[in-house]
Structure formats: structure tokens, C-alpha cells
């Protein structure tokens, strides 16, 4: 860190230099979507080299998770990607359920799917709003926030929170939907698709938008896999990898949807993929809502789901052939959670979110590893920004759809 500051100082003091021009972008730059810092090496206005510096928002979620029990760890996951926290909750819950061998009731699966897809719509709307604002299209911003507000209000009715809702629990969800919420969601799914069309008419054929996005940050398919890009960024390059289709979880196995892909792998294609995903998410919510009456009255939490306050120790009596009078048996300590490890991944709105958990039998995870999409996407910035203008860097950060809370953990 110090070295970059030294270079800057040297540059200011010297009147003339032959070296490339070094410039510091962030961590307070408004279009880096958080506290991302980029150290740029420029030649004229072209980027020769770009070094992302992250860690300003590091809160040690992985270390904290080792000190909390499984149900408390879910609350930490809200703070990772705070725009789509329902997706994070689901990833954690899936990993823990796999470890504990829990079977989730069908109604809970449907509710989770609805909540996850709502999170995807929320995320993509916010992405479209800020990305368009960064590039110079102001109007879309306000329209997108109007729709996002509607969804946040529905979230508030579901669980009482707007952003950090720990609605998904280990073994199911916290509570059932009321009829009012279902009616509201039906109304939303009716009215939302025409609005997507409206947004597209605002920017789809806008000459400035096309010039700023077409041919910017092209990633060929092989490199996209090698870089570890996932989600819409990978699908923009033409590879139809979607965890919802490849390793179905929750109710995604029984709903019908299409995985949209791009052709050229540039910023415009990634934009098209996300717009198509909005429609597909809306379609998935509609299908799940239609299936809800079949499971009316079923529980939304598995019977053997762990209590919110998991006990630190559980003892079972020692098996004795002949019980004696007046002797107290100490008992044997029983593991609360099976010893072992589990890996679960979901298609979060930003990409593949994977959780790897190792257990030692106690009520706390021994190791809680979170693979977040933003962390990997930031590592792709140097590759994508090479030989582009500084102004295009804004488009690249926007198109990768990063959240620094997600990457720094």
C-alpha cells in the first residue's frame, strides 16, 4: 500500500517524467460501488495496468461464523451481499441442511424460491439503475427504484425487514405467507413484464448507450471460465452454465424457465442477459405462486430443525445392562451436528455463491468458507480493463455487478 503512495509523491515532486502515469481511483469514488480502490497505470488515457486493492470492508465474517452457532451464522450472511440477502440466507441454509441431513418441506421450498427470485429482480433493478446512471442514462434510475420499492414493501410484509431479512432458516423458512402477500405478488407479476419493456425502450436503441457498451470488455468463453466468471457475466459470453439448471436446489427442479445467453461477450450482451433474466424470474415467481395452493396448510419448517438457541452440549445416558439403585450416571456426550463437511452452491443474482462448511460435532461450525461472486469478479478487472479508456472502466465495474460487502466479507 505504501509503495503506491510513494510513487504518487514522487510523481508530484518531479516536473517531467518518462515513466507511465500512475493514478489512484477510489476508495471514495462514487462509481466504484463501494470502497473499491483501483491503482491505474496509464499511457495517455489508455489503461496499461490496473491493480484492484480490496479489504476496506473486511469484517471477518468467516472468523465470526466460527464463534456463533449455525442459526446465528445465517444472520451474518445478510451482511454479505446486502442487496439480495435472501439468496445468501438460502446458500447458508442449504449447506447446513446438507450437513445435518434435513429434509425441507415442499411449501418451504416454494416460498424460498419465490423469495430468491424476488431478490434477483431487486438486484437486477438496482444494477440497471446504477449502471445506467454511471454511463449517463439518468431516467432509468428513478423508474427502477420505483419497482424495487414495491418489492421491498412486499419483503416488509413477509418478514418485517426490508434489506437484511433473515427469512430463510435452517430447515425451512420463518413463517408462512399470508393471503395478502400472495395477492400483492400476483399483482406484481401481472404489472412487471410491461415495465421491463418500458425500460428497454429507454436505453436499448439509445446511441450513447450503444457506443458505451458495444465491444467494451469482450471476454471469450474459454477465458470467462478460466477467470471464474459466473452468473450473467459468464452467460453473456455464450456459456449456459446456471446452477439452477445444473445442480437444482429448492423448487427449481419443478419449474420451467430458460437460461438466456449472449453471443459476443461484451457489456451490451451482459445487459441483454440480465434484462431477459428479469422476465424469467417473474415467470418463476408466477409458477411458484400457482403451485402454492397444492401445499396449503403444510408446515414451513422441518420437524427436526434445530432450535434457534442450539445447546452447547447434549448428553445421552450410558447404556447399562442392569440399572443400579442410588447411582447417578454421568452420560456420554452426543454430537449435536453430524461430524463431516458439506458443500452447497446456489445461483445468486451476481453469480455462483458457494458455502463449504466443516463440522466437529459441536453447535458451531469448525470452518465456514464462503466463495462469493464479487471477489472473483474483481480479480477479473485487470484482464478486462487492459487497453481500454479510463471512462470504460466505469462501464466494466458496472457490468461486473460487484458489491464490496460481498467481496471483502
Amino acid at each position, binding site marked *: *500500500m*505504501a509503495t503506491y503512495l510513494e510513487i504518487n509523491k514522487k510523481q508530484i515532486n518531479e516536473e517531467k517524467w518518462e515513466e507511465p502515469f500512475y493514478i489512484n481511483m477510489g476508495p471514495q469514488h462514487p462509481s466504484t460501488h463501494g470502497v473499491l480502490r483501483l491503482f491505474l497505470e496509464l499511457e495517455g488515457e489508455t489503461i496499461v495496468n490496473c491493480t484492484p486493492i*480490496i*479489504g476496506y470492508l*473486511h469484517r*471477518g465474517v*468467516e*472468523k*465470526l461464523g466460527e*464463534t456463533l452457532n449455525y442459526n446465528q451464522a445465517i444472520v451474518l450472511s445478510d451482511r454479505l451481499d446486502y442487496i439480495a440477502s435472501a439468496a445468501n440466507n438460502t446458500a447458508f441454509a442449504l449447506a447446513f441442511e*446438507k450437513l445435518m441431513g434435513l429434509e425441507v418441506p415442499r411449501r418451504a421450498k416454494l416460498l424460498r424460491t419465490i423469495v430468491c427470485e424476488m431478490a434477483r429482480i431487486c438486484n437486477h433493478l438496482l444494477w440497471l439503475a446504477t449502471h445506467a446512471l454511471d454511463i449517463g442514462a439518468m431516467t432509468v434510475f428513478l423508474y427502477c427504484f420505483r419497482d424495487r420499492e414495491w418489492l421491498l414493501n412486499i419483503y416488509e410484509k413477509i418478514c418485517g425487514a426490508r434489506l437484511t431479512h433473515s427469512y430463510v432458516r435452517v430447515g425451512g423458512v420463518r413463517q408462512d405467507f399470508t393471503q395478502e402477500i400472495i395477492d400483492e405478488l400476483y399483482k406484481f407479476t401481472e404489472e412487471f413484464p410491461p415495465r421491463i419493456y418500458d425500460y428497454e425502450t429507454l436505453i436499448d436503441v439509445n446511441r450513447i448507450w450503444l457506443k458505451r457498451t458495444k465491444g467494451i470488455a469482450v471476454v471469450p468463453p*474459454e*477465458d470467462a*471460465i*478460466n*477467470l*471464474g466468471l459466473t452468473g450473467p457475466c459468464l452467460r453473456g459470453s455464450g*456459456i449456459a*452454465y446456471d446452477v439452477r439448471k*445444473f*445442480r437444482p436446489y429448492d423448487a427449481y427442479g419443478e419449474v420451467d424457465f430458460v437460461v438466456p445467453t449472449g453471443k459476443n461477450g461484451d457489456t451490451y450482451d451482459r445487459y441483454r442477459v440480465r434484462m431477459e433474466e428479469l422476465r424469467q424470474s417473474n415467470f418463476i415467481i408466477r409458477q411458484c405462486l400457482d403451485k402454492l395452493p397444492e401445499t396449503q396448510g403444510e408446515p414451513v419448517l422441518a420437524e427436526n430443525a434445530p432450535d434457534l438457541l442450539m445447546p452447547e452440549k447434549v448428553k445421552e445416558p450410558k447404556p447399562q445392562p442392569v440399572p443400579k439403585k442410588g447411582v447417578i450416571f454421568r452420560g456420554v456426550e452426543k454430537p449435536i451436528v453430524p*461430524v*463431516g*463437511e*458439506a*458443500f452447497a*452452491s446456489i445461483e445468486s443474482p451476481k453469480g*455462483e455463491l*458457494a458455502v*463449504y462448511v*466443516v463440522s*466437529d*460435532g459441536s453447535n458451531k461450525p*469448525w*470452518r465456514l*468458507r464462503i*466463495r462469493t461472486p464479487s*471477489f*472473483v469478479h*474483481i*480479480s*477479473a478487472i485487470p*484482464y478486462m480493463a487492459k487497453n481500454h479508456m479510463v471512462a470504460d472502466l466505469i462501464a466494466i465495474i458496472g457490468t461486473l455487478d460487484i458489491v464490496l460487502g460481498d467481496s*471483502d*466479507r
Partner: protein
Amino acid sequence: MEELLNELKEKFSSVIVEIQEKDYPTLICKRTGFLDLIKYLKDEKGFKYLIDLCGVDYLNYKQKKFEERFEVVYHLYNLDSKILIRLKVRIPEDDCWQHSVTPLFMTANYFERECYDMFGISFKGHPDLRRILMPDDWEGHPLRKDYPVYLEEEQEWKTYKEFIQKVKK
């Protein structure tokens, strides 16, 4: 799936110590010859996507059945045949290094830097091994089991202390 595991077992009998059937097939590998195995998997068998690379510290783990302290865990995925496999390499504390796979997977760059930052496992052959999430002048490796969750006052980050003194003046 079984064909692949049998083939790997035959071809890399000196590298693979054990094959475990868990939620995903888990190969426990030796450090020597590990690069050949992962290269073979990537180039010949189509495991082109490295989902995750992470370290695990097994200090004082009650159910431990091996001597080494650390493990580096790789999750590899084949996009065509939809197979996910897990590779594990055990690393002793006094000889704390592992081969870097950054030349093969560009994704591994940041993962390995994070693993180095959090566990102190150095990766041989990595182009730019620095701390990533913690500050450059941080002492210790936070995710090790012998690192406390709450630091004592003397152990606090020096730069922060200097900053506080500066502000007070």
C-alpha cells in the same frame, strides 16, 4: 463417475492417498505430483472451472485422523459432464507451502492470496503473493485456530494506534 475415479487411481497411484465418498467424491492427494494430477484433470478430463480454493486449519480437531495441521481444499467442476470433485492436500505446519495453480486457473490468483493472508500457507509459483484482505503490515494470520477473535490491546494494529495518537494531537 466411477470410471473416472478408477482411472485416476490407476494412473496417479503415487499421488492419490485415499478416495472418500462424501457429498461429492473426495480425493486426498500428496503434495508431490499434485500439479500433474490437476493438470491432467484440466486438460484431458475437462475440469476447467475451479469453483473454490480454500484452506482449513485442523489444530486440536477432536476427530482428526491425520498428522498434518492444514488442508487446502479444491472444488473442481466439469461443465460438460456436470461432475464436481473435491481435491484435498494436507500440509504440515513446519513446512507450510503448496504448489500454486495460478498458471492453470486465473481464478486461483485471488483465492491463493486470500489463503496466504488468512492461514500463512505460501504458494510456490504464484506471481504476486501479497496480503489481500488484511493490511500489508498486519501481523499474524487471522483464520488460524490459535489466533484470538478479540485482540489484546498490545496486539492491536500498529498503524491504527499511530493514527489514533496523531488525531489526539
